[in-house]
């Protein structure tokens, strides 16, 4: 990990609602990683049959690209990007 790059990368908060199934969280994290983003913080709550996942992400690629890829996951119901993340969220990582 290169700390200089890490600091330079823009930060986003992203909310994802996805069905609870085996490996749901791993699937989400795998896509985030392979598409070039780093998870700075993550909070998961269950809501009925769904996970409600709040992520703070850092990455220099367009976040819309990540959103598209996450939306393709069969069990993802919704992805909302709030960008850029509040400074607070970034520092809480």
């Amino acid at each position, binding site marked *: 990990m290169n700390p200089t790059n890490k600091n330079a990368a823009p930060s986003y908060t992203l909310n994802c609602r996805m069905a609870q199934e085996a490996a749901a969280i791993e699937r989400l994290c*795998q896509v985030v990683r392979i598409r070039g983003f780093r998870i700075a913080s993550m909070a998961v709550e269950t809501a009925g049959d769904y996970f409600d996942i709040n992520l703070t992400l850092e990455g220099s690629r367009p976040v819309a*690209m990540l959103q598209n890829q996450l939306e*393709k996951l069969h*069990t993802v119901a919704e992805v909302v990007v709030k960008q850029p993340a509040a400074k607070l969220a970034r520092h809480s990582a």
Partner: protein
Amino acid sequence: MNGAQHILDAFHRHHIGTVFGYPGGCIMPLYDALVDDVGVEHVLCRHEQACALAADGYARASGKLGVCIATSGPGATNLITGVANAHRDSIPMLVITGQVASGMIGTDAFQETDVLGMTLGIVKHSYLVDSAEDIPAIMEEAMALAQSGRPGPVWIDIPKDILLTDVKTPTPEQTQTPSASTPDLSEALAMLREAKRPLLYSGGGVSLANAEDSFRAFAEASAMPGVATLKGIGNAGKHNPNDLGMLGMHGSRAANRAVEECDLLFIVGARLDDRATGKLDGFAPNARTIHIDADAAEINKLRATDVALRGDLSGILTAFTHEMEAQPLAIDDWRTQCQTWRTTGGFQAADNEEPLAPITGPAFIRQLSRITPDNAIIACDVGQHQMWVAQHYHFNHPRHHLTSGGLGTMGYGLPAAIGAQFADRQSTVINVTGDGSFMMNAQELATIRRYNLPLKLIILDNQCLGMVRQQQELFYNNRESQIDLDDNPDFVAMARAFDIPSLHIERTDQIRRGIETILAYDGPMLLHVAISREENVWPIVKPGASNKEMIDEPKRTTTAKKEQVA
């Protein structure tokens, strides 16, 4: 019915008649159910990787779902390359593996591997079944998912005890995939009419969407010059005068030139892969883009597009065809220019007329293209021979060209050809392979023999890993490293050991007879073709360079095959 029988029931309801698999401990309940089943033909390959690649070849050749089955642990891990191959090329595939019994998961039980975790990055979706009652619904969903939108492999991992449990839940209704609507074309149409130098750029998405006919109708009605990606070869048919062939790293000079000069790229079912575009900065520098694709995530992924049309390719292309028929494009000058480039910058290495001359890859493939019937299916491996097929074989349909595009899997060709032959027993199916690739799944000669498949195998044997040798020669100061295969086995004798007759040729005047002999033979036959070690694939773009920096074949100074590379 137990869980295993429900899997077979789902196959019946979806008219899946052929599956490729290999048995073992945790999947035994399914193999037990197969004993009493008459509706599903199970093809026993000799390695699970070959099962997955055969299912891939079956799916590509037929347009149907490919199915492969394996046991837990090593069975599942052996499938991985084949499933990754299908994932990278968006091939509809259903993968079923047995898993250790539910209570044993996480105990490091015999033949336990975390299949779900290991395969997350190579599937469209996956399931670990935790109740037999879910099997009918999961089967329905998985089969629909694998074939809808942008297709891909869906993997179902099922613990052994669940396969054996009786299921009481009634079978669900078949999932109907909602048909995609046709988006508004007006902006794209205006842009197309404005363009002076529009270029059609098509990829594997055309046949994945079963849009071959509507694509061809559009290509003809618009008479737009066109280029194809490796997987788009054949989209335009072999008689379209505006088709400039493959673009990219080993594309034709004509195709790459047209991309450089065009002012509009009309992209259909292609994802702007780096082997096609070269360095992105230098790709189609003067062009606006219209991008038609089934997958929203491909649009704007690597290059911002001006107009995106997402939806059913057939519907969109048919709507454009009507517009073109009503008012043709006024691009005569550009069309003529591209046809000139096609004549001067197409793939046309001169055939060596000298009968005793050694055989070159391109000359062999051109003869093969002339002699084989129009509906022949060619399954390639990976390397120089794969590029020679892409360059010099004239395909009339994209489903006739089976090639591992995204993953570039050596060992793909032989099992893929087996799958294709099961998809169409009447077609001529030919595996064109290299001496390196052939050895990666050579055990499948036994599968050919077992099912008496009339496959034709052609090994272009240059006694080395030719594509790697070429790049070492051109880009690593000719420092050869680990590419020599001059201790290859005697391939003719090897085929004979599997009771497959074979023939060896090495001179130009033997090409025609060699090809005619294997085609005429009523059964599987292997043609071993000795070719020069030093032959290269031309032109070539250095990996990471712009397509503009294409390197042509240096002038031959003698008739000898050994080249001096400038």
